[in-house]
């Protein structure tokens, strides 16, 4: 069965969604991602949706779920590259994804993740080894 590839970049995971996802694929991604975060003790997840020309309520909820689950697992999620038409439609649909961090592109998203990871490391202050 097809899966969406999850790339590892240091302590971050990068997911690029490039296909028109059917519901089961979205659920599989959620499961795979959750498992992977634990496996590599990831500190952040970058979700690249710049190829998506449509986000409906199901995919919107998938994004929310991914962000919520990663947070529980002590990882930060940043969603990048939302297309303007998609953003306008989501807002009209009534989905604002309030607890999801966003950035314009992968580069910005990585900056955010690194900054967030930095804060966590500074806050840990020797309790955990970096």
């Amino acid at each position: 069965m097809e899966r969406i590839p999850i790339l590892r970049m240091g302590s971050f995971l990068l997911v690029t969604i490039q296909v028109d996802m059917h519901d089961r694929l979205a659920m599989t991604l959620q499961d795979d991602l959750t498992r992977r975060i634990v496996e590599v003790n990831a500190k952040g997840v970058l979700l690249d949706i710049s190829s998506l020309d449509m986000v409906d309520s199901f995919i919107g909820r998938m994004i929310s779920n991914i962000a919520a689950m990663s947070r529980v697992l002590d990882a930060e999620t940043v969603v990048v590259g939302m297309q303007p038409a998609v953003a306008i439609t989501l807002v009209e649909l009534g989905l604002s994804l309030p607890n999801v961090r966003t950035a314009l592109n992968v580069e910005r998203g990585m900056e955010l993740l690194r900054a967030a990871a930095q804060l966590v490391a500074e806050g840990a202050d020797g309790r955990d080894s970096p």
Partner: protein
Amino acid sequence: MAAIRHEVIGVRTESDIVQVRQVVRQWAVQVGLGLVDQTKIVTAASELARNTVAYGGGGTLCLEALQEGARSGLRLTFEDRGPGIADVAKAMTDGYTSGTGMGLGLGGSKRLVNEFDIWSRPGEGTRVTVTRWR
């Protein structure tokens, strides 16, 4: 007002939902809808197709390219013979609660289109018709 072109496709499985998005996108482009309007009707179609598959037990989608005088439009009719919706008014207000919502996507879809019509009778089925004008 005339439908200058129409087509009926089956909406029964999850992959049909993906198919619906692609077909509606093609028709929206042909009718001449702008990018944002295309995205809106494709998203509405995805919601309604999912309803048809998940709650309606499968059904059909009829696409119509409309021409009324100088303006053109796209009309989608989703129909199923499923259990129907007991309280349509309530179903329209079901919102998206944070993650756990079982919202039928009807209220949201309505905001994405110019015209929205729904018929449903418990035990008989449901028919939702949405139209997006240029």
